[in-house]
Every structure is written in C-alpha cells, then in structure tokens.
C-alpha cells in the first residue's frame, strides 16, 4: 500500500521528469501530478529542446556539471535506443558560431556533449560574419512527444495526473505529505517568489527537411534547430515581457537573421509561430523548505527557475529533487510513513 502521498505541481519537462524520478524510485509513495496546463500547452512544448547549458552565477559548478551530465546521459541512452522516435529524442550535430572570440573557450558542458572541437577555417567560410566556432553533437528532446512519453512512464508506476490550477499551497496541505513545486513562472504567485521573471521567446517552425545540422549564434538569440518533423528557428530574449501573442516584427527579424546564417531558410515554408515565456531566475531554485500550511508542517521541495535550460537540466535536477524528497522522508515522523 502506498503510504506517503507526494504531489508534484507543474506538468512541463521539469514537473514530469521530477514526477517520474520520484514515482520510479519510491514505489511506496503515491505520486499525483497537478497542473493548470498539460502538453501540448506547456512552455516546454514549444521549446526546440536542444541540450546546451549556460551557467548560473551562484550555484557550485560541480552541482551544475552533475545536472548537465545526468540529463545528457539519460537522454543519450534514449536517443540510442529503439525508443528514440517514441520519446521524441534524437542526436543532433551542428555548430555554435561567434562574431568575436568568446571569453570562455571551453565551457563546462563541452566535456559532456559529444565530439566537441573548434571549427576549421573552411567550415567558418560559410559564415562570413563570424570568426570563431565550436562543433559538437548533442541531443534534441522534443517535449511535445517527450512529455506524453514521460506521462506513460509515470502512469505505469500508478502515478495520477490531474488537470487543475493550484492557487495556493494551502490547498494541498491536507491531501499530501510532501509537495514538489515545479511550477516554473507560476512560482511567482504560488510561493511568492519575486525573483522569478519571464524571458519572452518567439520561434517559427519551418519546413526545411534538407537541413541536418543545428546552427546557433553565440549570442543565444539567433538559432536554427532541425527537428524530427520541422525546423525550429528563432529567437528573441525579451526580459520581463509577458506577451504571449506572436509579434510580426519578431517574425520578420527571425527570418532575416536566420536567412543570413543559412540562406536556404529563405526557401522554407513557415508552418507555425509560437511564443513561450522562459521561467527565469538569477539562479535555479532547487532546495527544500518546511512550510506551515493550514496548521500543518509540510515539506516542500522546490525545482524551478530553469530559464532557457529546462530540457537541458531536466533529468539532472529531477534526480537532485528526488534526493531532497528522500531527505524529507527520512525526517518525517514515523506515523506518516505507516
């Protein structure tokens, strides 16, 4: 009989990864996932899902390296298996190019992606505006397929999914013993975190099946990511911008910038446009907290604020959150475990 009731709030890549990690590792826990939005309406669904990390300023580097490595290795195993198309996970090779030589020549994630090397002069000739580049093979994880695949895994363990907006953690204190908060931007209102802010990103999906490589400008704002059925091109990074509607000026700018990197984009048909708000924070929040809710002391594990690196850090942070849940279990009074 499942004796500990865990609830995960949020059904994006962080919510589902965390829920699966917990449900698969702790069979004596009953895990329920609650979210206002489910795939295909989450922020994760529109993301290209290319594994690629930046650095949070105040988190120990070792911890960040572990997050990246765990996520990469987990998804690589899926990409190499027969599950690859079902899970929406594939290998993707390409390059990151810079107009000026970057300060960090060997970013920390360079040892975790595959075959990382500098681009040769001949390769750079294709990009007359750029003078430096890195080539490597990484993973692309398409959440519109990956999230339903994770959901299947989650349900196999007996996990329950309920579409419901959680307005306050108070609502959950009676029904659950441990709360795991993966609500992304929702944390602003759910737990009153004023450090969370949106970074608006707009992307286009185009039909260009001849493109096999990703190309990313080191500024992080212009990129071309070929996927399973279409190519995602982008983007924008508008801090504090809450607009979810497509901006025609952004569309025009994206097409111009991407065509300059890859002229054949001009021949591609635009299939759709999408806007997502990256749930950003100076540092990702992954920690536990004891909260007083409706007269009860309830442990809460926070796993949010991944910004542009949700897919990239999803499994690693989920494993870390699982560790925090284990700590909560360890400290719980015996009667709750019976």
């Amino acid at each position, binding site marked *: 009989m499942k004796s500990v009731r865990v609830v995960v709030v949020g059904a994006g890549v962080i919510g589902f990864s965390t829920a699966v990690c917990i449900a698969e590792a702790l069979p004596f826990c009953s895990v329920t996932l609650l979210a206002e939005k489910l795939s295909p309406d989450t922020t994760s669904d529109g993301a290209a899902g290319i594994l690629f990390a930046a650095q949070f300023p105040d988190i120990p580097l070792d911890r960040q390296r572990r997050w990246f490595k765990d996520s990469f290795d987990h998804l690589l195993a899926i990409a190499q298996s027969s599950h690859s*198309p079902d899970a929406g996970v594939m*290998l993707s090779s390409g390059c990151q190019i810079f107009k000026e030589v970057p300060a960090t020549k060997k970013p920390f994630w360079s040892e975790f992606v*595959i*075959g990382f090397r500098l681009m*040769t002069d001949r390769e750079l000739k294709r990009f007359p505006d750029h003078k430096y580049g890195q080539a490597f*093979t990484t993973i692309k994880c398409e959440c519109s397929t990956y999230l339903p695949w994770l959901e299947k895994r989650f349900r196999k363990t007996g996990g329950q999914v309920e579409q419901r907006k959680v307005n306050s953690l108070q609502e959950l204190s009676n029904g659950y013993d441990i709360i795991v908060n993966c609500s992304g931007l929702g944390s602003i209102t759910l737990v009153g975190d004023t450090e969370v802010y949106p970074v608006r990103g707009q992307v286009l999906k185009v039909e260009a099946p001849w493109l096999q*490589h990703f190309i990313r400008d080191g500024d992080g704002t212009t990129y071309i990511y070929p996927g399973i059925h279409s190519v995602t091109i982008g983007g924008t990074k508008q801090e504090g911008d809450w607009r979810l509607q497509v901006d025609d000026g952004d569309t025009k700018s994206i097409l111009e910038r991407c065509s300059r990197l890859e*002229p054949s984009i001009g021949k591609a048909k635009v299939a759709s446009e999408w806007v997502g708000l990256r749930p950003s924070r100076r540092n990702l929040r992954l920690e536990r907290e004891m909260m007083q809710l409706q007269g009860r002391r309830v442990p809460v594990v926070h796993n949010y604020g991944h910004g542009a690196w949700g897919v990239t850090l999803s499994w690693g942070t989920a494993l870390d959150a699982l560790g925090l849940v284990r700590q909560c279990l360890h400290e719980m009074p015996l009667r709750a475990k019976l």
Partner: protein
Amino acid sequence: MRVAVIGAGVIGLSTAQSIYQQYHSIASPLTIEVYADRFTPLTTSDGAAGFWQPYLYDNGKIQETKWNKETFDYLLSCLSSPESVKMGVFLQSGYNLFTEPVPDPSFKDTVLGFRQLTERELQMFPGYNYGWFNTALMVEGKTYLPWLMDWLQKRGVKFYQRKIDSFKELAETGADLIINCTGVRSGELQPDLELKPGRGQIVKVDAPWLKHWILTHDRYTESYNSPYIIPGSRLVTVGGVFQVGNWSEQCNSTDHKKIWENACELEPSLKHARIVEDWAGLRPVRSKVRLERETIQCGPTAIEVIHNS
C-alpha cells in the same frame, strides 16, 4: 560544332553542363544534344542515396581524388546560392565505422571537419572499435537531375529519348563529337572487359529523427556490402549489398532481409520506421574511371569519342 552526349544520368548531364559552360561562347555555334533511353527518375543516379564519399583509398589514382575534390568544392560553393534547395544539395555529417584502426582516407582533407571518433562515440556503436566523423555533401539525384535538365533546356540543349546502338549511328546524323556517358551499359556500345555491374539494393524508409549517415566497413568485403544508413531530405536510404557481376535490377527478398536485419542492429530505432520502397540498381564498376579520347575509324570517316564512364 555539334556535340552528342549519350547518357542522362548524373555523369551525362553534368558533362553536358560543363561543355556548355566552357565552350558556348568559344565554339559558337555550339549544339549540344543528349541521347538516352532512360531519363530521370529512372536512371541509376536517381536511385542512389546521393551521398558524396569516394572509395576509402585511391591506391595511387590521384587523378580520381582530384576529380572528387573538384566535385565536392563545386557542390559546396552551390550551398550559398539560392538554387541549393532546388539542386538537392545539402550538408550532412556522419560516421564511418571500422572494427580495427585503419589509415586515413584519401578524402580526409576534402570533407569538412574530419576527425577520429571519440571513445564515447564508439560506445554508441557496439561491435565497432574505430571510426571517423566528418561533414560531407548530399546530392539527391531525383532533385539534381531534373534541375540539371531544366538548366540545360533553358540554354537550348535538346533531349532525345532513344537507345543509341552504335557510335556510327550518331556520327551519321552529323555529330562532330560524341561523349559516351553510358555508365554500366557502356559495354553495349563498345566492349569493355573492365566494366562490371556492382549490384546494389536499398530499402527506403521514413525515419525523420535520423540526421547522420552511418557507413560500416568490413575488411573482408567491399565497401557497401556492409550495413549503411543514409538519411536524405525526405526518406532514409538503408543498404547495402555490392554484388559484382550481378545484372539483376529486380529486388531480391533475401537481400532485403539481410539489409534490414543488419541495419536494425546498427540503429535500433529503425524498427519503428515505415518502409516505403525497395530498389535495386547497378553501379558501373571499373578498376579506374574511363575518361579518355578515342578516334574510331568507321570506313572513310573518323569519329571522335570521349569516354566518361
């Protein structure tokens, strides 16, 4: 000057294009005609995956390495043109896999970013202990040949669907120069003991999550007799067999089974791929490319023939 090209595969059409580019203003008036019994999409070039990679070692045939390089560089330069999509030309990276270390190939400086595979990459391919990664070019025949024909037609080149039985036949119609680009069936125009068919069979599947080509090599067999997977712009080409001396253009179910099983072992996700079609074609195999001029005496007349097969 009247030039007659026999053969409308990638060699015939490219040759016609080159001749036009080099000579249309010099040898004016220049008439170019292309004769073939098979045009796109029925040529050998149409069935091929369209992957640029020569045999691994040229064994001293440096002229061939030079031709290969010129081809690569030319196609690479086409990428920045707005025509590249219509030409069916695009870049793709991938893996050459071996069971033991081998010397670097003749084409290592021609392709982009050539390097040895890392340990981690080799772990992705159980059974293979060594390999290379590089970026190469794809030229899809089913797109490139129609593009070439359109290019030629716009410049006045005429096409005739007709089987040519002898060089004499064309010479008698008034051709000043005949270019023989007849590929595997060259022997029907002029016996060539060195020319043999290298039969290949492929399975074309829908597997759009695959973005890298993978070629395996077995030291005991010829290239392309070992599994290979080459994604294209729409479908993935899975092979392979290389049967020298086999003239059959029919698909063989034993070959299909062997190809499919080996490929699924190499790339497990293929199990989920929808099989679209099978195809068999005859590679025009020769110890070296025949590119030479010959004057054929035909009674009182001499016929100038250039062979490019």
